[in-house]
């Protein structure tokens, strides 16, 4: 293809997206669109999978059967979300094994929030309430994204997320209404998860160079700062209503903008965790890689069995 031909294809492509048409896997697409989507969608899938680790750790220690079935179902959902997203990404021509390889080698990133430890039961509350709450805001914005398989996966995921946040908030609420020790636990979890949750929306707009392109392709509908503001505005009243305090001395209602002003995020910490120096980066990857490696013989055995069965069937047919 000549350069002029590619250029006109690209223009037609951008025009289709601008008209709100969806792009499907076999359609022609610019290489950059394909690569950007493989990167973002696989990272999203990795986040769901790694996201099972901090919570999975608490399933056996849930304080009641009610809490246990809810947490189990939530963690299973996250595994499902990872699977929807992996298969949606595979339609762009990358294999599942290649994606796992990128995750395990550290080449692909996942959401930094999962590199923080879940120390007490109250963290199960804070994670569902804040982390899933922030994820919902990001994901709702993606339901209308331009790549068909991604948008469809997001619609399915968003339907399932709401219970995650509600069960988390319920855990926090019950602790906040409990003994002084229980309330202190809830406050402590909020103190530790608040700032990392704000970081989930990514760098500030002026340090987020891909925003313009992502807006065009509808990978973003609002900027990082707009989404972060939305999260703060909706979460502050939820904390107040159960008597917990957001750990930010600069937090103040701003009548003029009809939203909260809030303090500066510790961006050094953000970049440290992104670069692999968070409290649990190594532990998470170790758990993930060992699960994958220890499962190898099971996957091999299943494949060998399937091939043997197939062979037997073919022989009988002769």
């Amino acid at each position, binding site marked *: 293809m000549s350069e002029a031909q590619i250029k006109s294809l690209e223009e037609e492509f951008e025009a289709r997206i601008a008209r709100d048409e969806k792009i*499907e896997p*076999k*359609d*022609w697409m610019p290489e950059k669109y394909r690569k950007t989507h493989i990167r973002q969608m696989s990272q999203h899938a990795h986040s769901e999978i790694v996201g099972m680790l901090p919570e999975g750790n608490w399933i056996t220690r849930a304080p009641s059967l009610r809490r246990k079935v809810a947490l189990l*179902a939530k963690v*299973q*959902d996250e595994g*499902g979300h990872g*699977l*929807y997203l992996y*298969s*949606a990404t*595979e339609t762009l021509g990358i*294999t*599942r*094994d290649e994606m796992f390889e990128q995750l395990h080698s550290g080449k692909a990133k996942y959401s930094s929030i999962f590199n923080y430890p879940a120390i007490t039961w109250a963290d199960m509350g804070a994670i569902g309430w804040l982390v899933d709450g922030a994820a919902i805001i990001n994901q709702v914005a993606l339901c209308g994204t331009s790549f068909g398989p991604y948008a*469809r*996966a997001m619609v399915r995921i968003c339907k*399932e997320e709401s219970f995650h946040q509600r069960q988390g908030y319920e855990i926090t609420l019950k602790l906040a209404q409990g003994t002084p020790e229980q309330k202190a636990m809830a406050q402590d979890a909020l103190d530790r998860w608040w700032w990392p949750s704000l970081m989930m929306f990514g760098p500030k707009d002026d340090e987020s160079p891909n925003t313009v392109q992502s807006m065009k392709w509808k990978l973003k509908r609002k900027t990082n700062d707009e989404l972060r503001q939305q999260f703060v505005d909706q979460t502050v009243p939820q904390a107040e209503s159960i008597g917990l305090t957001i750990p930010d001395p600069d937090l103040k209602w701003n009548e003029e903008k009809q939203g909260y002003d809030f303090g500066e995020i510790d961006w050094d910490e953000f970049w440290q965790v992104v670069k692999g120096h968070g409290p649990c980066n190594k532990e998470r990857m170790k758990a993930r890689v060992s699960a994958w490696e220890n499962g*190898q013989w099971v*996957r*091999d055995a*299943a*494949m*060998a*069995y*399937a091939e043997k*069965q*197939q062979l037997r069937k073919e022989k009988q047919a002769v």
Partner: protein
Amino acid sequence: MKKEWPLWEVFVRSKNGLEHRHFGSLHAADADMALENARDVYTRRNEGVSIWVVESKHITASNPEHNAELFEPAQDKVYRHPTFYDLPDEIKHM
């Protein structure tokens, strides 16, 4: 050995009376496992009453680059639609 499990496409009938609809795909060693995995991945909330799985490699898809030859010929065949035919207003039930 290191052999990736094949990819399967999953179709789910959400309730009797409706057709099976494409829900997504997954990896499994064989058809039985594909069905079981499809149940866990795609019907955790009563989304279905029946599941079909088919190995992705068995699906032949049309090429969007040929969409013009394939689908445009239907565009100028307005006589396939009822509104093409002029009838007097007083004619009812037609």
